[in-house]
């Protein structure tokens, strides 16, 4: 009797779970697999449902690296219909493993050529860009009458000794982005010397962005380092989530010559249960409406040239004209080697 009492609810739960799983891939629902940072306004998402009849189910699976690797492992039998959140540092892995089916999204014409990294194959659609740059605490430098650093060379200058905190390139995506920026700036054989100089100048490495920005950076909390690797959009985000009154100027700034450009892509997962819905969703991600909603939801820049930026971005953000990039193929080929080299150089 005792057994049956306990077994019944367990089996019941399993039955509910299996049933629920099947209902999940129904005809008028489209599943978006994405990372934890994905966000969209309710109104904008509702509009999509009104226009197409599909409701969107958002499936979040951790950080971008985990989501992409899971997509690679479940190639052909995906967890959803569309994946959003592959960036140029991870792109090759998904293309090599045939994770995506081609779809030429409506509205692609409004996207600059330089962002369409899959050329004419259209397996992935660029959706947004973001820049990983050194941020500085304005007040800290003003108080000391010191000009904030603008270039990589400045960061290695003894005048800025013990001021910079960066993330572990092995575990954090801004950390990796910053490493790649130095590779782009100093070349495949030159970045090691540069990092040696940075290390000699007292660069500090912590594990993740949260720790670096929230705990160590003086511009965001009680930290003691006025320079941190973060995003070009961090100053506007700091203002939006900074209090009632809007300041004249964002309390933090960006060193524009230290920026690595990240491009985020979405794609139709090969073997998607709802392929039509997936195509509609991809078109929607590139629609002007979604593109203009994105900046204040995810703090990234739209890829569409005709998408207007919100006032918070134009007033408090920095326009990065000449970001650094590294070819996606090159990243794929050397990623592990660079990270290992960087680790033994800076961490140990």
């Amino acid at each position, binding site marked *: *009797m005792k057994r049956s009492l*306990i077994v019944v609810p367990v089996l019941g739960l399993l039955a509910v779970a*299996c049933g629920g*799983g099947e209902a999940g891939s129904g005809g008028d629902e489209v599943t978006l697999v994405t990372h934890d940072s994905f966000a969209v306004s309710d109104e904008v998402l509702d509009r999509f449902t009104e226009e197409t009849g599909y409701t969107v189910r958002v*499936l979040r699976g951790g950080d971008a690296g985990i989501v992409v*690797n*899971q997509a690679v492992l479940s190639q052909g039998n995906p967890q959803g219909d569309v994946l959003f959140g592959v960036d140029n540092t991870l792109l090759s892995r998904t293309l090599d493993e045939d994770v995506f089916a081609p779809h030429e999204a409506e509205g692609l014409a409004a996207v600059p050529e330089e962002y369409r990294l899959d050329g004419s194959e259209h397996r992935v659609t660029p959706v947004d860009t973001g820049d990983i740059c050194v941020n500085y605490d304005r007040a800290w430098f003003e108080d000391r009458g010191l000009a904030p650093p603008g270039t990589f060379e400045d960061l290695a200058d003894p005048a800025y000794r013990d001021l910079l905190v960066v993330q572990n390139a092995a575990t954090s995506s801004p950390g990796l982005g910053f490493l790649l920026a130095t590779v782009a700036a100093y070349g495949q054989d030159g970045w090691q010397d540069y990092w040696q100089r940075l290390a000699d100048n007292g660069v500090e490495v912590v*594990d993740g962005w949260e720790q670096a920005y929230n705990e160590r950076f003086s511009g*965001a909390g009680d930290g003691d380092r006025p320079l941190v690797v973060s995003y070009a959009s961090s100053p506007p985000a700091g203002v939006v989530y900074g209090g009632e009154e809007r300041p004249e100027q964002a309390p933090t700034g960006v060193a524009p010559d230290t920026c690595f450009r990240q491009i985020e892509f979405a794609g139709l997962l090969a073997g998607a249960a709802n392929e039509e819905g997936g195509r509609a969703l991809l078109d929607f991600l590139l629609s002007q409406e979604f593109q203009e909603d994105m900046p204040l939801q995810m703090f990234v820049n739209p890829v569409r040239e005709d998408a207007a930026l919100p006032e918070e971005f134009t007033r408090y953000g920095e326009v990065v004209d000449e970001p650094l990039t590294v070819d996606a193929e090159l990243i794929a080929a050397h990623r592990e080697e660079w990270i290992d080299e960087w680790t033994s150089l800076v961490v140990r």
Partner: protein
Amino acid sequence: MTRTAALRRAALLAVPVAFFALFFAYPVAAITGRGLKEDGEWRPGTAFEVLTDPGVGQVLWFTLWQAAASTALTLALALPGAYVFARLDFPGKRVLHAVVTVPFVLPTVVTGAAFLGLTGRGGLLDDLWGVRLDTGVWAILLAHVFFNYAVVVRTVGGLWAQLDPRQEEAARVLGAGRFAAFRRVTLPALGPSVAAAGLMVYLFTFTSFGVIQILGGPRYATLEVEIYRQTAQLLDLPTAAVLTLLQLATVGVLLGVHAWIVRRRESSLALVDAAHTARPPRGAGERALLGGTLAVIALLILLPLGVLVERSLSGPDGYGFAHYRALGSRSGGTFAVAPWEAVGNSLSYAAVATLIALAVGGLAAAALTRRAGRFTRGFDALLMLPLGTSAVTVGFGFLIALDEPPLDLRSSWILVPLAQALVGVPFVVRVMLPVLRAVDDRLRQAAAVLGASPWRAWREVDLPLVRRALLVSAGFAFAVSLGEFGATVFIARADRPTLPVAVARLLGRAGELNYGQAMALSTILMVTCALTLVLLESLRPARHTELVA
């Protein structure tokens, strides 16, 4: 053993065996198998390469010794605490008992922040006395004590409270000194549960991840961190598979040692109602012990938690509830989570996970109660394995193993409580088993002689005695789930964010308001956990009769 008894045990074991096979063994075998095979061929070469890498040796060594040091330190600091909570009455005991479990449920990013706020550069201790444990081994060890204090207090204290104090008193009357009486009477009785607590703390710290990354800095890596890096970052499955096997083998050896130590030490004990064993402290020694324990708790647990509460209350215009109000007023967008919604989600996941863990773990413990053959003992050890297996391995294993109907659970909500129950079951078994085994079998036999069915004998004899252990283990399973332990980080989840998930989202975005709200939500998580545990523990048996003469 009679045939019916064997059948009964097999029936009891059916559910735990199926659960374990389906949700642990199969997924882990699937993902390691995939890593070790290339184009259908086994590749022993990878294993050789990885295992002979000196870096791997260093990681293994660090993993082993930091876990041993953490366990020793935790036992040293928490065993007196177990005594104090089991035997002494003092004001606020119930609440404090719940509060020491709170660290367990907080996301590591949050507790890491609290610890750094206390011991780090410019932290409270630095300001006061210039004491700084910024990052490094000591910070890791202390954080491990912070997390695992409750494991010892609850597992050992749960049994200690039910030991009949008159036995030790009898030894004293017969001339034994206080220490001798403790050593000869109480310690042997507690042995198995101390070993169980030590084992669980060891396994937890052996697979430590967030603490190592945040407090250790990038210089320190455990096997768990390495497996995470190979799987989640580099997608180097062959290396990850070898490391997973190395981790499993090490845990296997540990479990063997534990089983060897505990075997033959378990004996039936005179258990009494815990309500009768506690009394106010007597004499200077006991008062000093109480004072010392409270000081340890205050310094190691209350102070870091206090830092979080302080941060949740401090806004741009001084102290206030601005962050809590902001949480309530958030509207629109898939990013925003209403706090009551997150509390509701957390509680419902935790309730389901607790039920699963109690059902599976309870059945396993019932089947393993009577000393049995090699198979049963082996299964007992197997049930501990999920605690010592890397979460990313299990999570990615779910993804590739449970991907075909009728078991395509990949995006189903049930996978989350199942993954949490996998970590909860070992707690249930380890807490229940010492108590169940301590129940004098003659009581059951007497019941049978008097005509009671096995079910009735269980209800009338075992249940009253194990009710406390049942509540203790339910508390653990609940806390494990509330804290999102195990593979849940690696499971894709539809939009029903729990408290820890909502905290992580807020922390991932720049802006003072986001940070303050993350701290406010963490405080809500703390309070939710403490309140639920207090409520759970007030489900005491109504009758206060003496159970065993």
